[in-house]
């Protein structure tokens, strides 16, 4: 198949599926999931073929979305290693999640709506991956936002779910504000929005000139784009929506809030790396925000008791890692981590889903325990995922994490000692909280009735776990990464490499040992740090900001608008008119004396006007 028909299919098929399901919601109640899953399998097939497609430097045009005069913003596709690899990840995990959902959402009333939204998400995510220009990327950027909104709010009757959906969308909107601003600046400077053309311009064109003379503008543009990435990839301080998003069905968390959508921010940063890299300030800010996010999220994860929340903070932390890598000048490292992380984090989420499913929607790890015997497959796959996430040597996560640490290492071009330290600390904490999770949830004895009666999940749910277990181990190796078109970083050699290796090993070991020691056979959390448990009180701060800042301000503005605008344009003239009117009515007193007096006055005034008063010829 031609690349354009491949990409076209990949893009439009899920859209068709989504539209059909949404529109004929009632009719398709019982087949919608099959339609959607079928579509996801076809997409995966297409993505596999697409892996062999040739690079298209000018992109593939589907149609001109906006065309005014010389300006165009197309729906067009970029074909390069990055998009091929990412498309594989998205469709692969997407397909598995679809299959998994067949089981997980079997008894849900609104299953059709769920699968419709899932299709919409696939459509949107594919769009981001394939976008060859910033406007198109923005379009799909927002669309993934809305499909995420729908999926988080799937159980909309639950106030938490409804609020979480809203929060996710709005936080992303803040990010999109920056994204759009960045696009506008770049468009303003060059006159087009195509990524390839922008890159060309940066290499030898208008942008190049501007970078040399007005670097602040490039910095601003880069920061704008990064703000978009912050929203989507939940970087501090816009990270607050991601943990809440766990209110959505667990497969959604696996697909959207772990493997694909949240990674889109990183994906986008790598796409526009030529802009970010053009300004040191941008890179530094990105790296720092990434590092802070990574560390902060890891700290928060250590004190969570909800199994999905732990994974969510872990995701945050890992995203911070990736972003930091990009900021530090390692886009390939970031992308590579994204790629490995997608597999094992998706698997972890799906595994946690199986656990939750088995425990009748119990999510508190302190009410679980002893699950390894009851759910062996789940346990083993979960363990593999945990190991990969911790960065246990030879697992997929090990390679990618080591790459990032290497970038952060001071000897590397942009490396930074403090950041490196933070990264190592984060790695330690990762090992710590993941061990804690596994130890508490799977070992010891069952601490709740539901955990006691847990049993292995059905086959459709187990199968994706098993499938994902393989890349979780093997994805870091060239024999898999290369055909899958992952952006594999160059192996770092030199003195630093050993230090980095050592640090990463030590981190895993320290974290693992500390957690094992603390949590073995513990019935409740022996460590209690409210600051971490309450996520540094950032949510509370935002709630206050919304309530006392935004809403009060809105009240104030409304009042001022009423008083001044309405007062000056409506009430005052109206009062004036009616006041003057009644005064003039008062002249009409009914008394003839008054009338004759007015008439006499009129005579005098007219004579005055005629004879003695003259303003102009």
């Amino acid at each position, binding site marked *: 198949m031609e690349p354009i028909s491949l990409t076209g299919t990949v893009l439009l098929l899920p859209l068709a599926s989504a539209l059909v399901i949404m529109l004929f919601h009632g009719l398709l109640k019982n087949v919608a999931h099959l339609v959607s899953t079928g579509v996801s399998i076809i997409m995966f097939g297409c993505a596999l073929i697409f892996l062999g497609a040739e690079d298209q430097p000018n992109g593939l045009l589907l149609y001109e979305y906006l065309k005014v005069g010389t300006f165009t913003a197309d729906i067009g596709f970029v074909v390069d290693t990055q998009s091929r690899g990412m498309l594989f990840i998205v469709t692969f995990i997407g397909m598995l999640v679809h299959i998994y959902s067949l089981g997980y959402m079997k008894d849900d009333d609104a299953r059709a709506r769920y699968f419709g939204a899932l299709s919409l998400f696939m459509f949107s995510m594919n769009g981001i991956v394939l976008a060859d220009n910033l406007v198109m990327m923005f379009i799909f950027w927002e669309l993934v936002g809305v499909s995420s909104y729908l999926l988080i709010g799937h159980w909309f009757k639950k106030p938490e779910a409804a609020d979480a959906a809203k929060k996710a969308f709005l936080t992303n909107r803040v990010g999109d504000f920056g994204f759009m601003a960045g696009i506008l600046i770049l468009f303003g400077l060059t006159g087009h929005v195509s990524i390839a053309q922008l890159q060309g311009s940066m290499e030898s064109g208008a942008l190049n000139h501007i970078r040399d003379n007005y670097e602040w503008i490039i910095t601003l543009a880069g920061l704008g784009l990064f703000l978009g990435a912050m929203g989507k990839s939940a970087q501090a301080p816009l990270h607050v929506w991601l943990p809440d998003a766990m209110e959505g069905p667990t497969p959604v968390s696996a697909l959207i809030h772990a493997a694909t959508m949240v990674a889109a921010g990183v994906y986008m940063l790598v796409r526009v790396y030529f802009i970010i890299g053009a300004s040191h300030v941008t890179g530094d800010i990105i790296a720092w925000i990434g590092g802070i996010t990574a560390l902060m999220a890891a700290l928060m994860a250590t004190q969570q008791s909800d199994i999905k929340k732990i994974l969510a903070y872990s995701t945050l932390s890992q995203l911070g890692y990736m972003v930091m890598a990009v900021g530090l000048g390692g886009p390939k490292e970031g992308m590579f981590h994204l790629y490995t992380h997608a597999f094992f984090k998706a698997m972890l989420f799906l595994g946690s889903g199986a656990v939750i499913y088995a425990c009748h929607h119990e999510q508190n790890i302190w009410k679980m325990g002893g699950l390894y015997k009851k759910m062996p497959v789940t346990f083993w796959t979960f363990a593999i995922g945990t190991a990969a996430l911790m960065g246990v040597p030879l697992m997929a996560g090990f390679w990618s994490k080591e790459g990032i640490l290497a970038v952060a290492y001071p000897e590397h071009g942009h490396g930074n000692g403090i950041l490196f330290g933070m990264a190592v600390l984060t790695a330690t904490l990762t090992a710590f909280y993941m061990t804690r999770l596994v130890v508490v949830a799977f070992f010891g004895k069952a601490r709740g009735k539901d955990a006691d009666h847990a049993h292995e999940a059905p086959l459709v749910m187990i199968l994706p776990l098993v499938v994902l277990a393989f890349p979780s181990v093997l994805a870091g190796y060239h024999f898999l990464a290369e055909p899958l078109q992952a952006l594999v970083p160059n192996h770092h050699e030199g003195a630093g490499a050993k230090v980095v290796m050592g640090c990463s090993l030590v981190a895993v070991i320290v974290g693992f040992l500390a957690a094992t020691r603390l949590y073995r056979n513990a019935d409740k959390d022996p460590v209690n740090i409210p600051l971490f448990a309450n996520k540094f009180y950032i949510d509370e701060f935002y709630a206050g900001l919304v309530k006392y800042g935004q809403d009060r301000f809105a009240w104030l503005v409304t009042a001022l608008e009423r008083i001044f605008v309405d007062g000056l344009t409506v009430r005052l003239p109206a009062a004036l*008119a009616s006041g003057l009117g009644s005064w003039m009515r008062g002249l009409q007193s009914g008394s003839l004396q008054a009338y004759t007096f007015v008439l006499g006055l009129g005579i005098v005034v007219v004579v005055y006007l005629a004879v003695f008063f003259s303003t102009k010829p």
Partner: protein
Amino acid sequence: MSPLSLELGLGLLGLVLLLVESFASVPRKLIAYAAIGGLLAALAVIVSGAAGSVPDSLKEFYVVDPLALFYKGFAIIATLATIILSLEYAPIIHQFVATHPERTKEAGLGEFYSLPLFVCVGMMVMASAVDLITIFVALELVTVSFYVLVAFMRRSAASLEAGVKYLILGALSTGLLVYGMSWLYGMTGELSLSGVAYKLAHWEGNSAPILFAVGLMLAGLAFKVGAVPFHIWIPDVYQGAPTPVTAFLSVGSKAAGFVVLTRIVGTFLTPGSVVAGPVIQILLILGGATILLGNLAAIAQTNFKRLLGYSSIAHAGYLLVALACIHTGGLKMTSGEVAAFYLATYLPMTFVCFLILSAMRAKGYGEDIASLKGLGRANPTLGLALAIALASLAGLPLTAGFMGKFFVIFATVLEGYYTYLAIAVIGAATGFFYYFKVILAVYSKPDGPSEGPTPDLGLLSKVSLAVFVAAILVVGVYPDLIRFALVK
């Protein structure tokens, strides 16, 4: 056929009808029909253009130009409409004229149907009059007839009060006008307008005395057209007078005032005139004040007739401003023609209002705006007609009323009178408020639970209502219709 024969014929018809009224006991309606027939015949003569030239002996006082013919036709139509209106209103007249309404019938109606003919004669002469004596006599014929007509319902307190007020204030204005005329004569030594114009254009020396004369004249005429502050009689008199008379006053008398004002102002603004500047200034200031006062004071009115009184004041303001805009070459109309156009649009919409008001009154409804409530349901045709007329009064586009305002506003733009443009805009905007208030009442539910009798019109009134509404709409989209009649 001399154009004078029209006036003569109508005067004779009036005389004959009075005689018939006194000595023959015919149904009074026949008198009205005879008057209508005579007026229609006169109108036909005017429209056909059969009105010939003026005898030489009269050429000094009397012209027949398109403007005169236009206003003559206007006077005839206004009279016609008034008599039709009177037919609708007859029960009320009878009720308030007869000492014992139940024992007599049709008291005073014969006179009430025939007096308008004399007014019509006066107005027709005014349309042609070009010297001070003729103007004065014709004006007084109209004024004195109106004294009688306004106070006609002698058993109605309101009618009498209106009569007294009109009498006193009207006589005051007559005195003023005569005083102004004597000064104008004294300064120019001329009684004919052409002579005055010549003197004004070739004035030498101190201009203060002539300005004094001009000011007094304008003040006297301002009373007739109801310009602020000489408008003061209008609301009370309009409210108190019998409704057909109010209609006649607000259309006929006003138009007659304006034709005289047009001719006098035309004289004053003759090229090279020494008084041109102050005259324009007075017209503008009076016009601006009139627009503002008429519209603002109308806001709080609750009586529909009184509201129409203020509305007529406001319209007079626009007409004054129109008269002041003399550089309207782009419109291919003189300022007088703009004013005439405006009056022509004003006639149908005002008469529609008064027709419906009469019909309501005849069925026992009051004259308050509130008593119009439910009309839109009870008689949708009348409701729609009234709504269209009010929309036109408010100056909504696609109605005749808009075209009138359109020319005036355009004239101020062409002239560069931005202050008066702003005043016109403010006035028109205020107008929306009180006219729409009436429209709202028409389509509101009636206050009381019980519904009164359905207001309806006689056949003749229905026909004229249809004609007027059609005129409002047709002129609104095809203004050339009037312009053809006006600009030859």
